[in-house]
């Protein structure tokens, strides 16, 4: 016996397995199969939490995921989860749980003072006060923020792992109640690949609350048999798995919970799994939510949904009260009343708002024979406190009547769960009598069955699930139930509270403390669109997303408007159906694995040199190779000086590289490149730029004619993927007629650059049989048994070579070159030295001067452009703005006061004037010393020699600069030639 409210036997809990857990510091015992809510109720706990705004005491209202009130925080450290619904947490040994949004304790909560001032803080009160400017608001807001929120935030990184899986099936069935199981069996019988998803930890849905006889078996047996049959035919059954979102083209995201909040996962470490299911057809068997009703104090602990009372009784063997009042507008609540009476509770009254003169079903007649049933009766008010209910008052036969009770079971009818149907783009039909929307038109390949479709009664539900799942299904083969189990709801929706009830304490949205009076006020103030009403009052915006409150709120709005419910509209249903942890959404793609980390093929070789790494987009490349105690700048300066005076070796494998072959290769390249290509002799190369269609420079690189009909095009590392897409677009879409093949060989070729006055010697020593190519020429050779291609091109401004080898054979090539260079006093250099050297030479880079806003004219490259045009970008360059005065043009800046020019700084003509330009990159004159920079300056080409200020207010740095041409080293260009 785990607790005073537990029945001696019955239910689907495993009484042989006691489970101990902690709530608010106190240890309790429950049984395996208990939810946290059922285990606490069994132990006589009635107070579960506090509401958001008024901190009103709240118990548990529901038995499923729709619970608005009983929220707890569970677990600790990297497994801590706030805002868990006690009704949706299955207990496990060692579960640590706490109530939340209360201080200092759940029983005595100072936030409850808000309840006292509630007349002065109606819906939307915060829009009407706290004036006096943003500074004052920040003060008020600080307090508001502390008061708001629910659970305490997590503070630790997640301890567990999440996973995504792709899954495909012919039929996905969501929900495993009678309709869902019948549908899954039917689809499976028709030969479909079936996935069945059930959010509960066990199959059965409503059968877990209302056992029945199906096909001559007890429902437990029938469910077990159905499970076996589905698995035997290759179906996949996922329990504890919620369909969280229904997306375009029948993609449904299922969230499988492998652990409960706070629970340590199994050996594989997985906490949850996200299944991305692409289904041929989706069957939604998601059931219906019971609705609360409007009466004063309808939020007090001890007021529960009727179906939930029955679920606690039958599934969990827990009696939620010993003397109950039932308020209903349908037959279903009579089952609760009879079940409670069977379990030994007394029934103070069944208040049925339906008229007495209706036809009574056998179920109602049975209740009338033994219990006090009042038709046309309404509950006015529940009375009670944090400790539980202390009676109620009702309107019976027109008279206000006091009732003694410790439990109120409420049934305001049922709303089909249409969320996924609506996410899928479906429409709804309204039934005035039952006051419910059910699915009407569907836009995707999807069908709703059972209670979710408004189907009433078990036999109709089984038939509906069976026949809708497959066009092949024969009605007579559908599962059937015993006639006693076939209970219809007979709802006559009645939204009107008793006139005696105070609407200020009649809650619609329990968690957010939105009352019927709030809704009426918002309407009077003109917030009359359903969306305005929702946003102004926060109706339906709590963690339960209005699962129980939405229709009650809509009906209230409809009353104010004097219009029928469907005409006031609905708010949009969007994913997720129930809240989903961010961890399972992200799965592995976060933290260190947020994006792929692309490693150059020589990564391990570099790592052995212990370089300083630099992230470049997805790539990781060596930035410098410090020696001894050198810092980055010292290392980079030494490396660049070595290149200028001796020789340096660097890895340029990540550059974009494209093999362009075929008789039309030159024609193709002249679409891509803004320079001439066709006139290149075999064995020669040249610098080139590529433009976007809008005329701006997209990238730069080199183009080499390796054979008469074969070229090698290089481009920047950062722009390589974009360039690959661009080449493919031009090849396949713009010029499909050309006889040309374009192969992306970026990662086929690894490349080692050798630069410096001694570079020629290095090349000669490692490729002795090859004549060293002259500048912008190429040759092939064999290096350490590896076929190589040597391109004589200079980025540093020194005589330089790029030696290409297949990336799977680059190791020996790199080793030989590095050794040869080191043998004559050379060194390795990284991206930082590369940057210093290129600034000195005024070479532009993507992300620096190639900023997506600069035209070739702005970059001083007009002379390179092919006069005949015909390349991409040429046409758009004719737009007038490209020729107008005031363009930002690329220049050099030289510091004249010894200060370092701050990178990224603004360039001014005088202090306190608006900028006339900016610095894109700054470095130092490697040999002479002194700070130099590249940048843009308004009409800069004509301002050489002008004195300006480079100003960085964010770093408090200033340098006086002189405008120069954007080249600081070997202006005549003799160093890189022979």
């Amino acid at each position: 016996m785990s607790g005073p409210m537990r029945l001696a036997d019955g239910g689907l809990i495993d009484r042989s397995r006691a489970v101990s857990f902690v709530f608010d510091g106190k240890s309790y015992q429950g049984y395996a199969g208990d939810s946290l809510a059922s285990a606490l109720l069994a132990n006589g706990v009635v107070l579960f939490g506090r509401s958001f705004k008024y901190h009103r005491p709240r118990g548990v209202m529901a038995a499923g995921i729709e619970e608005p009130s009983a929220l707890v925080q569970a677990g600790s450290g990297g497994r801590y989860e706030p805002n868990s619904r006690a009704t949706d947490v299955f207990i496990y040994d060692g579960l640590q749980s706490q109530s939340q949004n209360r201080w200092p304790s759940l029983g005595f909560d100072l936030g409850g003072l808000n309840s006292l001032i509630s007349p002065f803080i109606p819906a939307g009160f915060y829009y009407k006060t706290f004036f006096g400017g943003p500074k004052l608001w920040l003060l008020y807001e600080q307090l508001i923020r502390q008061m708001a929120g629910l659970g305490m935030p997590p503070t630790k990184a997640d301890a567990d792992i999440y996973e995504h899986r792709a899954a495909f099936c012919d039929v996905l069935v969501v929900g495993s109640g009678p309709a869902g199981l019948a549908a899954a069996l039917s689809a499976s019988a028709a030969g479909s690949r079936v996935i069945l998803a059930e959010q509960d930890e066990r199959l059965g849905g409503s059968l877990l609350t209302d056992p029945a006889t199906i096909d001559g078996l007890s429902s437990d047996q029938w469910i077990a048999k159905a499970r076996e049959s589905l698995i035997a035919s290759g179906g996949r059954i996922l329990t504890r798995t919620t369909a969280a979102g229904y997306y375009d083209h029948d993609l449904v995201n299922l969230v499988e919970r492998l652990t409960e909040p706070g629970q340590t996962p199994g050996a594989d470490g997985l906490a949850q799994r996200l299944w991305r299911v692409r289904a041929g057809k989706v069957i939604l068997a998601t059931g219906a939510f019971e609705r609360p009703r409007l009466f004063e104090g309808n939020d007090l602990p001890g007021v529960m949904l009727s179906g939930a009372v029955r679920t606690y009784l039958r599934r969990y063997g827990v009696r939620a009260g010993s003397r109950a009042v039932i308020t209903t507008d349908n037959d279903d609540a009579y089952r609760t009343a009879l079940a409670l009476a069977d379990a030994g509770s007394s029934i103070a009254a069944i208040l049925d708002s339906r008229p007495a003169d209706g036809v009574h079903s056998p179920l109602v007649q049975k209740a009338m024979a033994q219990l006090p049933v009042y038709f046309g009766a309404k509950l006015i008010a529940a009375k009670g406190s944090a400790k539980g209910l202390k009676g109620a008052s009702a309107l019976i036969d027109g008279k206000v009547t006091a009732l003694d009770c410790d439990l109120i079971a409420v049934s305001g009818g049922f709303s089909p769960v249409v969320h996924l149907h609506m996410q899928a783009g479906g429409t709804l039909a309204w039934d005035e009598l039952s006051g419910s929307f059910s699915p009407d038109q569907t836009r995707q390949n999807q069908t709703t069955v059972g209670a979710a479709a408004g189907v009433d009664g078990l036999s109709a539900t089984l038939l509906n699930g069976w026949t809708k799942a497959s066009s092949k299904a024969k009605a007579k083969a559908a599962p059937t139930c015993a006639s006693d189990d076939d209970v219809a709801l007979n709802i006559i929706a009645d939204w009107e509270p008793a006139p005696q009830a105070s609407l200020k304490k009649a809650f619609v949205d329990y968690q957010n403390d939105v009352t019927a009076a709030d809704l009426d006020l918002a309407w009077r103030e003109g917030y009359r669109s359903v969306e305005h009403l929702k946003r102004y009052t926060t109706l339906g915006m709590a963690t339960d997303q209005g699962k129980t409150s939405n229709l009650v709120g809509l009906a209230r709005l409809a009353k104010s408007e004097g219009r029928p419910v469907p005409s006031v509209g609905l708010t949009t249903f969007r994913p997720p159906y129930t809240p989903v942890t961010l961890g399972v959404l992200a799965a592995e793609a976060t933290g260190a694995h947020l994006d792929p980390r692309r490693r150059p093929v020589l990564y391990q070789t570099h790592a052995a040199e212990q370089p300083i790494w630099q992230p470049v987009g997805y790539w990781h490349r060596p930035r410098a190779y410090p020696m001894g105690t050198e810092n980055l700048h010292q290392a980079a300066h030494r490396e660049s000086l070595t290149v200028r005076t001796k020789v340096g070796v660097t890895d340029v494998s990540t550059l974009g590289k494209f093999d362009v072959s075929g008789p039309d290769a030159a024609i193709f390249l002249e679409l891509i490149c803004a320079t001439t290509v066709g006139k290149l002799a075999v064995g020669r190369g040249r610098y080139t730029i590529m433009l976007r269609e809008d005329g701006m420079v997209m990238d730069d690189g080199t183009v080499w004619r390796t054979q008469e009909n074969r070229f090698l095009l290089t481009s920047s590392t950062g722009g390589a993927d974009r360039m690959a897409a661009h080449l493919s677009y031009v090849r396949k879409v713009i010029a499909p007629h050309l006889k040309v093949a374009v192969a992306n060989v970026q990662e086929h070729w690894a490349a080692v650059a050798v630069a410096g006055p001694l570079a020629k010697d290095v090349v000669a020593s490692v490729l002795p049989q090859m004549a060293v190519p002259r500048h912008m020429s190429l040759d092939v050779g064999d290096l350490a048994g590896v076929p190589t291609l040597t391109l004589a091109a200079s980025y540093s401004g020194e005589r330089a070579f790029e030696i290409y080898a297949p990336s799977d054979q680059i190791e020996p090539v790199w080793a030989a070159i590095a050794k040869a260079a080191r043998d004559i006093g050379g060194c390795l250099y990284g991206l930082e030295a590369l940057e210093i050297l290129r600034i000195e030479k005024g070479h532009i880079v993507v992300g620096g001067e190639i900023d997506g806003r600069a035209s070739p004219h702005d970059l001083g490259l007009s002379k390179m452009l092919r006069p005949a045009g015909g390349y991409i970008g040429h046409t758009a360059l004719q737009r007038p703005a490209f020729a107008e005065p005031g363009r930002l043009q690329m220049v050099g800046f030289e510091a004249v006061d010894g200060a370092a020019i701050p990178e990224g700084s603004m360039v001014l003509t005088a202090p306190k004037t608006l900028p006339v330009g900016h610095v894109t990159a700054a470095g130092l004159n490697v040999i002479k010393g002194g700070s130099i920079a590249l940048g843009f300056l308004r009409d800069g080409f004509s301002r050489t020699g002008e004195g300006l200020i480079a100003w960085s207010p964010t770093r408090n740095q200033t340098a006086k600069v002189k405008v120069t041409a954007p080249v600081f080293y070997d202006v005549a260009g003799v160093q890189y030639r022979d």
Partner: protein
Amino acid sequence: MTNAAHPDLVTLQTPDPSRLLRFEIWSDHEAAQGRLAKVLGGPLPGVCKSADLGAARLIWVEQNTWLVRTSPADGDLTLATLTAALGQDGSATDMSGALRRLRISGPAWRTLLTIGAVFDAENPTFGPGSMAGTLIAHSPVRLDVISEDCVDAYTPPSYAPDLFGFWCEAAERLAMAR
């Protein structure tokens, strides 16, 4: 090198090095394919298909474009043969360094390939001789089904360490969950 070995479930192996050659046909497709079939010893695999032709593995990769995997020893000869057979109707390019291959074998290879994926690797029609390009764990992947029990996965070398690591971890999880 074996990265993960659960023979009853899934095994990941980096196979011996091979040469990868890409060729593309731009004109007179029928004749060019005929010439290639003759020198390769069989017709080129169709769209999204792969086949063993002699000692080479032929993989359709994109429209009018195939990948040939041969042994390192045969590489140069195959390249020359392809180039000759293509004549003026296409060209061939050595891509040996552009992709890394991982062999995934064992009964759970299909399950492994659904992790972090958007592709239906469990579909029985994706059987031996099928090729699919897709995105797994944010990395570009090309899959070539070798047999019911085995698939080759190709990815650029820069993505390979992360992707193969991802699969190793996933394979270990599958093993732990057994």
